[in-house]
């Protein structure tokens, strides 16, 4: 069972109900549960949608899945009139390596996700929401299913929610093991009972989404933030964060730190402080070697680069990304060659095979790095890996190709000497791996 952690620098907005038994509907109600959705309904049928969207815009909340798109703006793109039904789709297919924040939300505060889904529904004029959890999260699915059933039995879901005259239904859904399904268009394909391959954009989901209807797709953390924002007010929420990055975020700090865990920190909080103060510094007093700051697809940062604020803009300026908020810390003992190989092996395994640059690129980078790792590399391999990665960038339907290329480029550029030294040092007497071995390597 995930252990809860705490630090004085935390600002508990999203996590304020964690550890208090709020998966129970009565406890949730006692802790201001379902007040936000009622506050929205109290604005009246004519003003409700505008009020929600304006509040969300004022909050500066940006998508917590990784792209950082302003949530209020996203909701405002959904056409008011639509012949086809509109849908809300909650992305709980959390699978970015280094990320386990939604895990904690579903475990400790599932009703916040449900209430957020209702709020998104009211904002766009949808009558139906889906909460999609990755297949591995079965015990969490059961918690969410129970929460949904409890919300129905109290009359919070279904017909005429809170006397508004509006109907709203929520269906929970499970995946069955596919990283790619975390991409919004592949998520819709999966929910439609198909292979999780991406759709070409445009049209964007806000116009043509699930079952061809206008669809808002948000990360579970984004959705769970909505009730808190409506209760405290958009401006108040925005004030907690940094410029153009409203509020707080759940940061999962893992790897070589003394106190790994999911911490709720204000947007813009210093990364170095997050590692050294909040997570207690590097494990066993070792030296820091590198940080992967926002899930495995984010380019690596060197120790001298981590004095930077954790928000979408500052991380972008630092040449990396805030991503999913999963901070992975590497100490001096880690071989970057091995780490880069493990990273690309993941993307090779998870590439859905739809786009050739991604399918072939991830495979060849993995093959090349496997050869290097096994001692059969030559100096050209490093340049070759870089060439492959550069040719994947921006050439695929969905961002998985970029997600594989970006960290790879970060590793080979920032640790080029380590790769070259490794190749030099592992030459003598080590066999070159055969093609058959390569094909069978890993999974």
């Amino acid at each position: 069972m995930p252990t809860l952690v705490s630090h004085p620098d935390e600002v508990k907005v999203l996590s304020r109900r964690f550890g208090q038994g709020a998966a129970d509907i009565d406890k949730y109600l006692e802790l201001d549960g379902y007040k936000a959705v009622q506050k929205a309904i109290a604005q009246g049928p004519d003003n409700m949608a505008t009020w929600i969207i304006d509040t969300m815009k004022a909050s500066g909340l940006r998508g917590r899945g990784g792209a950082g798109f302003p949530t209020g703006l996203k909701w405002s793109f959904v056409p008011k009139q639509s012949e086809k039904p509109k849908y809300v789709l909650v992305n709980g297919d959390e699978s970015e390596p280094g990320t386990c924040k939604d895990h904690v939300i579903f475990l400790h505060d599932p009703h916040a996700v449900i209430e957020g889904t209702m709020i998104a529904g009211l904002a766009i004029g949808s009558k139906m929401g889906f909460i999609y959890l990755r297949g591995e999260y079965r015990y969490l699915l059961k918690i969410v299913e129970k929460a949904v059933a409890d919300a129905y039995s109290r009359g919070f879901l279904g017909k005429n929610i809170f006397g508004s005259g509006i109907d709203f239904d929520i269906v929970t859904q499970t995946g069955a093991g596919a990283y790619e399904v975390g991409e919004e268009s592949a998520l819709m394909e999966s929910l439609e009972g198909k292979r999780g391959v991406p759709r070409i954009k445009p049209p964007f989901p806000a116009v043509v989404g699930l079952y061809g209807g206008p669809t808002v797709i948000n990360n579970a953390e984004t959705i769970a933030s909505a009730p808190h924002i409506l209760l405290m007010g958009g401006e108040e929420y925005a004030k907690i964060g940094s410029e153009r990055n409203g509020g707080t975020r759940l940061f999962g700090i893992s790897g070589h730190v003394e106190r790994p865990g999911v911490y709720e920190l204000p947007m813009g909080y210093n990364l170095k402080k997050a590692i050294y103060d909040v997570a207690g510094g590097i494990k066993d007093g070792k030296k820091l070697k590198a940080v992967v700051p926002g899930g495995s697809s984010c380019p690596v940062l060197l120790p001298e680069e981590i004095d930077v604020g954790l928000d979408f803009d500052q991380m972008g300026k630092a040449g990396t990304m805030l991503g999913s908020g999963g901070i992975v810390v590497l100490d001096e003992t880690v071989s970057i060659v091995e780490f880069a190989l493990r990273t690309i092996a993941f993307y090779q395994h998870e590439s859905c095979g739809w786009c050739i640059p991604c399918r072939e690129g991830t495979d060849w980078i993995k093959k090349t790095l496997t050869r290097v790792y096994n001692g059969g590399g030559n100096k050209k391999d490093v340049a070759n890996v870089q060439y492959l990665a550069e040719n994947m960038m921006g050439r695929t339907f969905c961002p998985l190709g970029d997600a594989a290329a970006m960290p790879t480029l970060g590793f080979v550029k920032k640790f080029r000497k380590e790769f070259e030294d490794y190749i030099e040092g592992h030459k003598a007497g080590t066999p070159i791996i055969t093609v058959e071995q390569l094909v069978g390597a890993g999974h």
Partner: protein
Amino acid sequence: MSTITNSIFTPATAARFDHLVTLYPVKRSALVPMLLYAQDEVGYVSDAVVTEIAQRLDLLELDVRNVLSYYSMLRTKPAGKYNVQVCTNISCMLRGGYEILDHCKAKLGIGHKEVTKDGTFSLEEVECIGACCWAPAMQVNYDFHDNLTTIKVDEIFDTYRAGQGKDVK
């Protein structure tokens, strides 16, 4: 009532599937959960499972197989009664995920995607399972085990072998 006259599933699962197809605007949306729940009951996605699910959803068996082959949790061969899935992705790797995997291999005497002779355990090296901050971690069927050590792994195996492990479904 189900239109399927002689379902291969237990009455409870058959009833669950009857209900599942009514939840979505399009029946086919039930496909992925159905395959997973069928696997939970049968142990794997057998030919008979494919046939019945195709029938239930008015799909070709080919459509079902096409989807089945995409998702890594779905399997077409039986696994052990307890399927041990060890994460070796980055956060787990940094905290000893590979040592845990090697220990499991040695302890169970099987490799990746293999089943013990008595059918009790099977082993899989898996990608990130979303337990990064409590690494190293593994799942036994759907049950999570985290902050693992080799000693803890031994205890977990003993618990399951004694039939006292949790079986989340």
